[in-house]
Each structure stands twice: as structure tokens, then as C-alpha cells.
């Protein structure tokens, strides 16, 4: 019974069987108890009680009230109680079985005879009294000078009639609710619980936590869902392997590229040394491109190192001094390209950080901003300490064209290109923002990108900081 298929099948099947069984048992028992002989106490007792009630109403009130009472009784009781007149008609005009009509006409005759002959006879009175005790149904109830007999028609209790009586149908409904409720609750829980676990793991993986696994959470379960979970885990494992090997490949390739590049640079230097004027432009171009390649490899290696890094060596730093230094360096670089760097706000703030890593992260963001700002434009750097959350909010805004909303999160991925034309010229976002993101996150911070109006892109960094203790 390990397969889910059988579990679902059996539970539905069983719950239906149990329901059917119990309700049949109840109804048949009920019918049985009603249908058994009139000698049985309970139906007789009921009859007497109803008859007394009927007599009382007949005496104190009228035929209309009696009719109402009868209607009420009919709704409540599984046994049809008929109130028949001398002609055998029911007060509520219900169909009356022939044998009851005959019985009534018999009673009517006998009573009629009795009344005419020995009305005052003492013995008869006693007899009548005994009659009233033993066979009360033969005694008429008199309303508006009309004689009626209250008769319980035990033989015409049908299932249809039963099911129309709320009091009767309550039992099977309760049984159904209880049985199916319990079974369905257990089944639903059993089915959805592992699915919830699976969903949570899938969410974790999509959030970048590739270590999420489901199988250990499911215990000894062995069914289709457990198989799905184990398949899911296999998939996650494979994904993790692929991603790791992808990262490893990038890192290894970069490592290996360094040696030939180092030789290339020296060989180029020798060529320039020998004859500084020969092929000057071409050699300078080769030198520039080699330098670019060198930067790229350096960034790739920083990124892969950051990806593998779990914790940092930090020291207390003056965050404002760090920002100031970076802004100055960037201004120096930007002014050579007719751009400016404005430090809007930079209050004194302390931070526990790795100086080299944090500076390189901020540099990457600032240099990116310079790259996308048009000539004559300016980059704005704004630092603020939120004393409530103990967070430094640093924004670095350019006056470039901004980026499509859909790309705002993706620019922190390595080598993401936002739009063809623009990036061919500028070289794309490359690795700078990816490195910045890893570095900021290693410091317990968060980095995000937003478009500003009228144009430009803001990189916003929130990172834990504090006021100087002095």
C-alpha cells in the first residue's frame, strides 16, 4: 500500500463503504424498531402521547388548530399518524390505505351501536374505560361534533418518507459528514504536506539557495510524492554541480589565461623596447587591449573568489573617509572625460568592513556610473545614516539613459547586456556590478538599482553602519 494511487483509491472506496454501511444499519434499525409490534413500549407510548395531545387540542381549541398540530407531527415523525373521520378521509387529505379505512368504519359502527344501546350502562362504562386503556385507537376524538380516529400507519413507513423527515435524515447526514470529513482531512493533509515542502524547497532554490533538499524532510515515506521529492533533489544536486563546475571553469580558465597574458605583455614590452617607433600605433593598441583583457581576468577572479567566500576580516572604518577617497579618485578620472562627480551628502559614519573589498565594490559602481553619464553630466553620490535601522543608505546616481524596468535586477548578473546598440560601445555592465553585489552582501548589506526621473540610473546600497561612539 505504498503507492499514492492505492492510498487515494482505498480511502475513497472505504469511506463510501463505511458511510453506506453505517447509514443502512441506522435506517434499518430505526425502521425495524418502529415497525415492530404495537406491543412494543416505545411506539405505543408515542401513540398515547400524541393521542392525548390531540384530545387536549380538540377539547380546548378547534379543528384548525388540530390540523396545524397534525401537520407539525407529520413533518416530525417517520410514522404517518392519520386522523380519519367516519368516512375514512384524512384530515390533511393524505392518501389512506384501504385497510385503515375499513378499520375506521368498523370502529365507527361499533361505537355508534354501543352509544345507542347501553349509553348509561355501568358495566359498559367500565368496559369502555378498559377499552380506553388497552385499545385507545378505537376511541374517537370529537371535534365540532365530528368523530375522528387517530391511527398510526406503521406499515406505510417508506424510505422516501423517512428521507423527507429532517429528524430522521439527520443521522445519515451526520454519519456522512463525520466519516468523509475525517477521511478527507487526513487524505488532504497527507497529500498536500509534502507538496508544501516541495514548493518551499523550489522557492529556496530559485532564491539561490541550492542546498535546499526535500527528501530528508519526508522521513520514511515511499510513494509517488516521495519519488517526486527525490527526483527534485536529484535535479537540485545536478543544478548545483553544473553551477559549481560552471564557476570552477570560469575561475580555472581565468587562472590559466594569466600566464600566457603575462608573457604576452612582456613580449610586447620587448618589441616596444627594441624599436619604439616601429608600428607604434598598432603596438599601443595591442597594449591597450591586453590591459583590458587583464582587467577582465582580474574581475573574473575577484568574482569567483567572492562567490566562494563565506566570511570577512573586518575592521572599524570611517565610511565617510572611504567614500570621500573614492569620490576624489573618480572625480579625477571623470574630469579627464568632461564629467563631474558630486558628493552631495557625506556625514561621518563608521562601519565594520573589509576596506579593500568595500572600496573596490564602491569603485566599481562609481566607475560604471561615469561610463554611462554623457559628457558635461555629473554623478551624484549621496550617503546617509538611518539611525533607526542603523543602516547607511548610499546612492550613486548617473545621468545616463537608465535601463528598462525588467532589467533592474539582472544588471547584477555577470556580463549582462541591457540593449544591443548602447552596450557594444560601452562594453556592457561586465562584472563590476556583480562584484559590487557580492561584496555588499558579504558585508550584510543590500544593493539595488532604480531608474530616476527624468533620466539616469541610481544604484542604492544599504549597509549596516553606526555613529561614532564619541
Amino acid at each position, binding site marked *: 500500500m505504498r503507492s499514492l494511487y492505492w492510498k487515494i483509491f482505498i480511502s475513497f472506496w472505504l469511506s463510501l463503504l463505511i458511510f453506506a454501511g453505517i447509514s443502512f444499519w441506522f435506517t434499518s434499525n430505526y425502521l425495524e424498531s418502529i415497525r415492530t409490534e404495537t406491543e412494543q413500549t416505545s411506539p405505543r407510548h408515542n401513540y398515547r402521547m400524541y393521542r392525548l395531545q390531540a384530545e387536549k387540542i380538540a377539547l380546548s381549541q378547534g379543528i384548525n388548530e388540530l390540523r396545524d398540530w397534525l401537520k407539525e407531527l407529520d413533518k416530525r415523525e417517520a410514522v404517518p399518524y392519520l386522523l380519519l373521520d367516519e368516512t375514512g378521509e384524512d384530515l390533511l387529505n393524505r392518501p389512506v390505505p384501504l385497510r385503515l379505512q375499513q378499520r375506521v368504519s368498523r370502529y365507527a359502527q361499533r361505537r355508534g351501536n354501543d352509544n345507542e344501546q347501553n349509553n348509561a350502562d355501568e358495566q359498559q362504562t367500565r368496559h369502555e374505560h378498559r377499552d380506553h386503556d388497552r385499545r385507545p385507537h378505537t376511541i374517537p376524538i370529537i371535534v365540532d361534533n365530528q368523530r375522528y380516529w387517530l391511527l398510526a400507519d406503521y406499515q406505510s413507513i417508506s424510505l422516501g418518507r423517512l428521507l423527507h423527515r429532517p429528524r430522521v435524515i439527520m443521522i445519515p447526514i451526520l454519519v456522512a459528514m463525520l466519516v468523509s470529513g475525517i477521511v478527507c482531512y487526513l487524505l488532504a493533509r497527507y497529500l498536500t504536506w509534502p507538496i508544501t515542502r516541495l514548493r518551499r524547497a523550489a522557492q529556496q532554490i530559485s532564491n539561490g539557495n541550492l542546498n535546499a533538499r526535500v527528501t530528508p524532510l519526508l522521513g520514511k515515506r515511499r510513494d509517488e510524492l516521495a519519488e517526486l521529492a527525490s527526483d527534485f533533489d536529484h535535479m537540485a544536486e545536478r543544478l548545483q554541480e553544473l553551477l559549481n563546475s560552471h564557476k570552477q571553469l570560469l575561475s580555472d580558465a581565468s587562472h590559466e589565461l594569466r600566464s600566457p597574458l603575462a608573457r604576452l605583455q612582456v613580449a610586447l614590452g620587448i618589441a616596444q623596447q627594441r624599436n619604439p617607433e616601429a608600428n607604434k600605433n598598432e603596438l599601443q593598441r595591442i597594449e591597450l587591449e591586453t590591459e583590458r583583457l587583464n582587467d577582465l581576468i582580474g574581475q573574473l577572479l575577484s568574482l569567483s573568489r567572492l562567490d566562494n567566500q563565506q566570511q570577512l576580516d573586518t*575592521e572599524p572604518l570611517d565610511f565617510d573617509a572611504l567614500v570621500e577617497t573614492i569620490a576624489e579618485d573618480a572625480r579625477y578620472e571623470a574630469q579627464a572625460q568632461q564629467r563631474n562627480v558630486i558628493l552631495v551628502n557625506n556625514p561621518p559614519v563608521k562601519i565594520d568592513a573589509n576596506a579593500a573589498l568595500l572600496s573596490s565594490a564602491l569603485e566599481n559602481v562609481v566607475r560604471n556610473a561615469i561610463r554611462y553619464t554623457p559628457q558635461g553630466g555629473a554623478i551624484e553620490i549621496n550617503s546617509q545614516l538611518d539611525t533607526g535601522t542603523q543602516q547607511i543608505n548610499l546612492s550613486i546616481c548617473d545621468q545616463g539613459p537608465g535601463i528598462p524596468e525588467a532589467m533592474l535586477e539582472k544588471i547584477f548578473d555577470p556580463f549582462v547586456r541591457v540593449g544591443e546598440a548602447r552596450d557594444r560601445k560601452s562594453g556592457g555592465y561586465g562584472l563590476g556590478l556583480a562584484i559590487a553585489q557580492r561584496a555588499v552582501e558579504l558585508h550584510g548589506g543590500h544593493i539595488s538599482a532604480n531608474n530616476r526621473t527624468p533620466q539616469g540610473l541610481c544604484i542604492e546600497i544599504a549597509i549596516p553602519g553606526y555613529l561614532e561612539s564619541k
Partner: protein
Amino acid sequence: MIPILLADDDTELTELLTQYLSQEGFEVSTAHDGNSALAQARSGHFELVVLDVMMPGLNGFDVLRQLRVESQVPVLMLTARGDDVDSVVGLELGADDYLPKPCNPRVLVAHMRAILRRSENTSDNNTREAKPDLQLDDLQLQLGARRVLLNNTPLNMTSTEFTVLSILLEHAGEVVSKQELSQQALGRELSPYDRSLDMHVSNLRKKLGLSAQGEERITTVRGVGYQFMKGQS
């Protein structure tokens, strides 16, 4: 010709560099593993050692650590590009400067010359012993012996750190600009995004600790440079 030692396990690269550097007026000896690099560097024959971090046997850091026990020969570390930690470690172990590898050979030569210029200055000082010792509060700098005493306890300092400290101390109470400090202590122009000067100063702060007044001895004057704080005077 200036005798230097080039320690790198990439033989093809050392061949090319030997060719390049000899054109620039260096007499290059090469070592391809840590042990032979250490043995040769100890000989005292070289004016400069260019040391690659990644080498079989002893790595560059191990060589530097053992070398510094007995020799103050100037060392230029070639660190792995993309690894900022390497450069910090190198400087802390007493390297005079570092360069990420691969690098432009012109830049390498510029760094080498800067280190040599600096050590020439200091050896001039050594021979002449012209300058008196510097003393400020509990700190004493013996320029001749290149020793630092804090409360009469000697402090372990790298050559660059000593130079930076001596310049700051000479101008105690004044602000020394970063450009000037870079020129004098590192022997080269200050270039943007170059953090080696900041790193040397940060190491100095750690070694010196706080002053008797419980304050930072070297303060950063933002946008300008560094200042060695005079005590009460």
C-alpha cells in the same frame, strides 16, 4: 647594471623578463622555486628581489617571512590579480610594494626603480647618519638604525612603514598630502584607485596603537592627506 633576483616558477616568463629587464639596466638572476629563491636572496648579493606569490615548494609569502628574519633587502611582491587579500598580506609581511600579476613590464620597471630610489636614499642616510633621531612623546625613531621604539620597546616595521612614519613624524602637527607621501615613501606618483599608501598607514596605526590621550596618532585629513598628531604641545 643593478643586480636583482627574479623568483617565478614560469620559466618562459622569466626568460622574457630577463631579456626585457637587462635592456633597462638590470642584471637578472632567476629562481624557479621557493627554496632556491630564499637561498639566493639571503646571499646579500641583490639590491632587489621580485617575488611571485605562487611558487612550488615555499610560496612567496613563506620566502618573504623567512627572508625578513635576517635581511632587509627590498622586496617587490607579484600578487595574484583579483586577490586583494594577497597584497595586504604581502605588505604586512614586510614587502616594500606589490604589483598584481600579470602586469605591464613598464609598470613593473617603474615600481622597481621607485623601490631602489628609496632604498638608495635610506642607505645614504645610513652612511652619513646625518639626521638625528626623532622623538615625540613616547615614540622614538632611530633614523640611522631604522628602528622604532614605543615606550622603549622596539616595534617591528617594514621599510616602507618606517619611511612613511619618519616623513609624518618629521612634519608632526602638519598635514602631509598623499601626493607628497606617495612620492617620498613609495617613490612614485599617486594614481587614482591605488590603495597601497592607505594600507601602509592603516598598518602603522595598528602597530602604534592609540596615544596616551587615547586618540589615533595618525589622523586622516579628508581630501588632503595624513597628519601625525602632536600631544599636548
